């Protein structure tokens, strides 16, 4: 039995406010003051969620955030499959980010496709002392020799590169010239830059602008456009998300000329300035390049949300609104085609999930975008927050997604999150691998909402049944009836209800 169903909104608000005050008491005064700005209870009608965001994390707390390198290599550049992405610096960063985001792709790995290889300059002490540029030069030669079918190279800077002052831009230019204008992209995504992975997304977008778009030549524009060309922007094809999205766009009559960046290729990046519309799923990580293409090439962009049937239908219509009647009819045709599937999924899963409460803490777009999918299943999101959101994310959240009284926590740390969940007793927590086992130990069902817990896709109509099944199996798993030994305590009603 969750709080949301037994209390009035005013009671929920008061309780959530008390909860925030209670959590803050553990901190030294200075820290409590800083953290207080990031925690709030949402008031309906407000333009944003009333929290500060995109500020430095507090030292010594268990922040869930990553770094700029993770934003660039791990998110934006890493999934581009026919380029080789060098983790330039010590061995660790590349090792830990190896294959961990499940950006699916089709290709011959190690020959013409390279996403699940770990290329690193494996810095040693001498590279720190004497600089790593010479090593980088040699490394690029070795790449060319051993991987002749690579279509380009990026250099993803780890912390020491910026600190020791290596000139990776000069190396990139020189090697590009030597290899006949090959695309070689230096990316200054050192982990200490900015406050989270968010700056890494921005830096990565700027690198596309400067080192791909600014070098487009007529011979690279081998592309014949049509009036229906769109590009998928900000979908990393986790568990195949971009594919279950692309199939819908094609079915409604559009032509997807590029995927950014899951299963993407350099040729697709280069073709994108010919799109008629850029459709943007993860606003946070790729609004920068979308705005740039709007200014420089006059391509409009629109945000969309492919989680859950309500938002999918809304988004398909919104996208179709940029095109002629044939596409608008196409959107209606697609919505109608999948309606029986949607009905069957809701009929099957809604009775098992109705009234269940969820607390979220993820990155990018998910702290808001998945709310609609939960609501389609009769569930309620009672707390949410962003790892690395900015104010514009909280505006979108407030205006389109969260209900009055929702608990909002920006850059929540382990301590706060644990206390909030303990007190609010949601039926499900959706967050990442670092949080997963903490909450499961507490007996709270959990789904990893970065990686779909190794499942997926969750996007599109083909993703919705998987989403519904996964939430059902998490919440209604028989294991949660076993967390308390029968001789120690009676099962809680909340857990009994899951039968």
């Amino acid at each position, binding site marked *: 039995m969750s709080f949301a169903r037994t209390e009035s909104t005013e009671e929920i608000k008061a309780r959530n406010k008390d909860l925030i005050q209670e959590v803050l008491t553990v901190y030294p005064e200075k820290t409590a003051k800083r953290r207080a700005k990031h925690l709030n209870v949402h008031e309906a009608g407000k333009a944003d969620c009333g929290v500060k965001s995109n500020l430095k994390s507090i030292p010594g707390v268990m922040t869930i955030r990553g770094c700029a390198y993770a934003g660039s290599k791990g998110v934006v550049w890493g999934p581009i499959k026919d380029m080789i992405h060098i983790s330039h*610096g010590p*061995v660790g960063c590349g090792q830990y980010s190896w294959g961990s985001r499940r950006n699916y792709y089709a290709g011959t790995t*190690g020959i013409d496709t390279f996403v699940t290889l770990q290329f690193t300059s494996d810095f040693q002490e001498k590279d720190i002392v004497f600089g790593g540029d010479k*090593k980088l030069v040699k490394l690029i030669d*070795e790449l060319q020799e051993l991987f002749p079918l690579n279509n380009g190279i990026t250099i993803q800077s780890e912390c*020491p590169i910026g600190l020791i002052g290596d000139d990776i831009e000069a190396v990139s230019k020189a090697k590009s010239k030597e290899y006949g204008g090959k695309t070689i992209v230096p990316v200054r995504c050192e982990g200490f830059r900015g406050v989270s992975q968010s700056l890494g997304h921005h830096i990565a977008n700027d690198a596309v602008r400067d080192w791909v778009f600014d070098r487009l030549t007529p011979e690279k524009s081998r592309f014949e456009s049509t009036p229906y060309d769109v590009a998928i922007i900000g979908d990393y094809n986790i568990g195949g998300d971009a594919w279950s999205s692309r199939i819908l766009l094609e079915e409604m009559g559009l032509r997807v000329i590029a995927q950014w960046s899951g299963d993407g290729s350099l040729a697709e990046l280069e073709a994108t300035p010919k799109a008629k519309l850029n459709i943007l799923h993860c606003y946070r990580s790729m609004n920068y390049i979308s705005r740039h293409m709007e200014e420089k090439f006059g391509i409009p962009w629109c945000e969309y949300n492919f989680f859950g049937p309500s938002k999918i239908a809304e988004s398909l219509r919104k996208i179709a609104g940029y095109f002629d009647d044939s596409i608008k009819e196409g959107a209606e045709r697609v919505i109608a085609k999948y309606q029986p599937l949607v009905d069957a999924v809701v009929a099957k899963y809604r009775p098992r999930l109705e009234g269940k409460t969820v607390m979220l803490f993820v990155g990018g777009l998910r702290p808001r975008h998945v709310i609609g999918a939960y609501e389609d299943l009769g569930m309620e999101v009672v707390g949410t927050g962003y790892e690395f959101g900015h104010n514009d994310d909280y505006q979108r959240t407030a205006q389109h997604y969260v209900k009055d009284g929702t608990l909002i926590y920006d850059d929540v740390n382990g*301590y706060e999150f*644990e206390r909030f969940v303990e007190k609010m007793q949601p039926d499900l927590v959706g967050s990442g691998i670092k949080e997963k086992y903490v909450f499961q130990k507490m007996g709270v069902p959990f789904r990893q909402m970065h990686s779909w817990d190794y499942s997926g896709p969750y996007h599109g109509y083909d993703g919705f049944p998987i989403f519904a099944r996964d939430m059902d199996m998490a919440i209604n798993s028989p294991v949660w009836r076993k967390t308390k030994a029968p001789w120690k305590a009676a099962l809680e009603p909340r857990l009994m209800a899951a039968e």
Partner: protein
Amino acid sequence: MAQNAEHVLDHVELFRGPEYQQMLTNKKKMFENARDPAEVERIREWSKTPEYREKNFAREALTINPAKACQPLGAVFASVGFEGTLPFVHGSQGCVAYYRSHLSRHFKEPSSCVSSSMTEDAAVFGGLNNMTDGLANSYNMYKPKMIAVSTTCMAEVIGDDLNAFIKTSKEKGSVPQDFDVPFAHTPAFVGSHITGYDNALKGILEHFWDGKAGTVPKLERAPNEKINFIGGFDGYTVGNTREIKRIFDLMDVQYTILADNSDVFDTPTDGEFRMYDGGTTLEDAANAVHAKATISAQQWCTEKTLAFIAGHGQEVLAFNHPVGVSATDELLMALSRITGKEIPEALARERGRLVDAIADSSAHIHGKKFAIYGDPDLCYGLAAFLLELGAEPVHVLSSNGNKAWHDKMQALFASSPFGQNCHAYPGRDLWHMRSLLFTEPVDFLIGNTHGKYLERDTGTPLIRIGFPIFDRHHHHRSPLWGYQGGMNVLVKILDKIFDEIDRKTSVAGTDYSFDIIR
């Protein structure tokens, strides 16, 4: 439409369907500027040749798919082996997110660790404020008994001085003056995770034994009968440490496990999250100076730590991941010699059971060729066991192995008729291994999860032993060490051998060799 509410297809099946395959084909043809399939095939074949191997082994700057991680991961792993200890990594924060994820993905457990979250301003002015504020916050929020500090490459490049920073932070009241804050410098550009383990463990012992950074007198060693045991960076720490404790108890040996993280990586699901669980008590860590001897299960994980301990007058002894009959024999006999305790009949019987199992099964392993990769000690332990089984560890590769490791491996090969054509490859990576497997094929590959790419490329069946194991569950709960551990490893190898025979002979229309009795 492929999708169906009654039988939900996820990625495993969904994208294999005709609609998606057609979509992917179109995407490739129209938009990817993909290479000619014949050219892809030509390069693929070329990449399997001796010529490619030669170029591959000539690499000097490029590392591809290394089997090693960086120092601070090892420091975090060692630190959580102490009671109530919070690892605190001084440097930029993304690193800590990575260590926590990496450990959680292997153990399927929470992994607690904090960062001092240094950013650009700290890069310019140094991270003292981050340390001062960070220690205060950690201390207040997580109520640790000890905070163990290590560094990232960032803090090392700018030259932050941990000793001075911690001292200053204490003066500013971040934590009480007598609160234990041991530290170790763990630059990611030196060594690997095993170096970090060594440095952090040495740092912690040094703190307790040598006067807590000059604040109290150094401990005077008063030798007792206890034995210290160090497991090293070990993906099987849960199973292995418990097995070692069982053996010690059977032998009636008094012992201290140093950096015992077997409980913190194996907490129950019972409604409570235990941020700290088990671990070597701080009192035991201090008193370990008085022990009679220290035994390390992994030589290359504990080189500095053992030298430090030896410097305090103890006998020290290192093994190399003791897997199998002889390695366990040596461990038990050493233990018996040092403590004067007899090896009990119960262990002799366990030994006999392992020998019995080997005798029953060795016909299936004898003469089979293996490739192994992983941490230097694990490689040594597994290779020694294979030789004992009459198998040939043809390629043994360790990205973080050094010259001394190479020489010791070669000496091991030279000691056995089964090791005559076997070679050790220090400082090489899994792309080198790929060339080895194509040009000098073996029957089986032993290594961590990353070996699945090699298995697919080269067709060499992978036996998963190592760290990390992300794509199989719970192997770390079973020991590799001791006679019982040897039994587990033997069964793992045999299962794969039999699975392979079944796979090769499971052909419709033929019934020969698809046996039910083996």
